């Protein structure tokens, strides 16, 4: 059975979701797709490509930085992500949890589509990155809107 990529949960004021993956990379990828899914219902074309690199002190911090970077690209360049390719997460040293993430983003300008939500910020509120009982990775995120 194919596992669900992400699901939205009830939250009074903001948007809350969980994203899943067999690997941490996949769960991060699905988190990004969940965020953009909450922003528009349109099928966004795969027109342009960008590379993104971020660093984080722990899993949550890395996820926060990753989603923030995508939001920054959206706010400053109206770049809407429809697909993520070749996502890689690497530990920078054996001693610390410091990690870096690299990914290729594919998408199009948001100008060409109808947006339904304005994400103000990614938050640490109720955020977690962990493995569930089935040994799958789960990321939970609340977006401030």
């Amino acid at each position: 059975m194919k596992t669900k990529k992400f699901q939205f949960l009830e939250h009074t004021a903001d948007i809350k979701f969980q994203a899943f993956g067999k690997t941490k990379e996949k769960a991060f990828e699905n988190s990004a797709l969940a965020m953009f899914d909450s922003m528009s219902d349109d099928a966004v074309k795969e027109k342009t490509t960008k590379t993104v690199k971020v660093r984080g002190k722990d899993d949550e911090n890395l996820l926060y930085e990753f989603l923030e970077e995508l939001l920054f690209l959206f706010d400053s360049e109206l770049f809407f992500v429809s697909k993520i390719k070749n996502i890689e997460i690497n530990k920078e040293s054996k001693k610390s949890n410091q990690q870096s993430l690299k990914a290729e983003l594919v998408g199009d300008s948001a100008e060409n589509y109808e947006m339904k939500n304005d994400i103000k910020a990614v938050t640490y509120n109720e955020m977690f990155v962990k493995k569930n009982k089935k040994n799958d990775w789960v990321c939970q995120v609340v977006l401030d809107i």
Partner: protein
Amino acid sequence: MTIEVKKVSKNIYEIPKTSGMKVPGIVYASKKLIEKMKQDKSLEQVMNVAHLPGIIDKSIGLADAHQGYGFPIGGVAAFDMDSGVISPGGVGYDINCSVRLLKTNLTKQDILKKQKEVADQLSRKIPSGVGRGSNFQISKDKFKKVLEKGVPFIVEEGYGKKEDYKHMEEEGCLKGADSSKVSKRAMKRGLGQLGTLGAGNHFLDVHYVDEIFDEKVANAFGLKKDQVTIMIHCGSRGFGHQVASDYIKAMENEYGFKDLPDRELINAPIKSKLGQDYYNAMACAVNFAFVNKQIITHWVREEMKYMFPDVKIDVVYDVCHNIAKFEEFEINGKMQKVCVHRKGATRSFGPGRKEIPLAYRKVGQPVFIPGSMGTPSYVLVGTKKSEELTWGSSVHGAGRKKSRNKAMKEMSGEEVKEMMKKKGIELRASGGYKLISQEAPYAYKDIEDVVDVVHDLDISKRVARLKPMVVCIG
């Protein structure tokens, strides 16, 4: 988690100090509103704030409190200048998300004659919605001046008049703004967003004064029955969010969050370099938001003038909702400067405070409580009592009670628009019909409940009620 809530007196509830809390939590709300708060994490967040170093007296939740990040929305706390902290989570991501009220020399009848045209013209002129850029162009150098000098600078550039900023909190410029403390990223994110309303719960409404409760104060504010007013609610857009994110990151790097009950309560000592830097950058975002509304005000004037050649539009006041400020209060019989965080709360100073514009100093500052889309909004006046109870603060709105998903399931956007039309309200939404039902009136707590509490507690007093005729949302 069950939280013990003890009734102190009518509309005042205490969350007693438990381990780790430096002060008790005090919630100013009715029993009905407290029960609503128990359904999310608002009360837990009031308790969490009580853990922060240097917090004075109590961690406050106001009648409209609902779950936020770090602090609850509708949360107020004051910190000692020497031992206390400043926290980006206590201000919020949308720094200086705020409300401005404009008054006109038009009456309800004038608008009714051209209601559709007014809705169309205003919604066309004021950019709102997601990913819609601004019609306002500015150089980088001038953008820096906007951040540091606020509304007085943009008025010099031809956007409005001196009287406008004389009737604003901080006269439209929070001192201490230093654009060198703002990241390039924030600059890049903000440059194209000046002069845009944004989306979500941000709006531009045309109201008429439906009822006056306090003739004397209404006179001082220049409001009378059937007069047309215009309300603008927006903030610092992506610029403020980036400033918040940048300093949350910097503070985490410097201090870590191991000792905090919630990662988003990250903070820095007020007197530390990082604490000061955050304040200087936050002040830039505060000024961004003031200027944002000033540009929108200018466009509102232009559009209204086109439809009503003799129209005169003046600023009643502009109040901040998400902010940290240094203010003086009487503590143990002595005046003491403290750092007040208001997150989703309005300053509500009573008569006599030097911070209030001269025109209102005898009566107290105007306080605006916007209703949800389609319900009335209130003008109130600040009181001395608020300085005793809530660090001179009052509520900022009705507060959500239903999630956006639930709200969308209840009615479609088309149905909401139809419902509004039956109430005599012209609604315009640039984000399409989906957003309309997210912000539907039934998604919010009853504004009357919230206003009753602050009026009964005397932390602000009813002055006038405004009924919407035109609502433009993002």
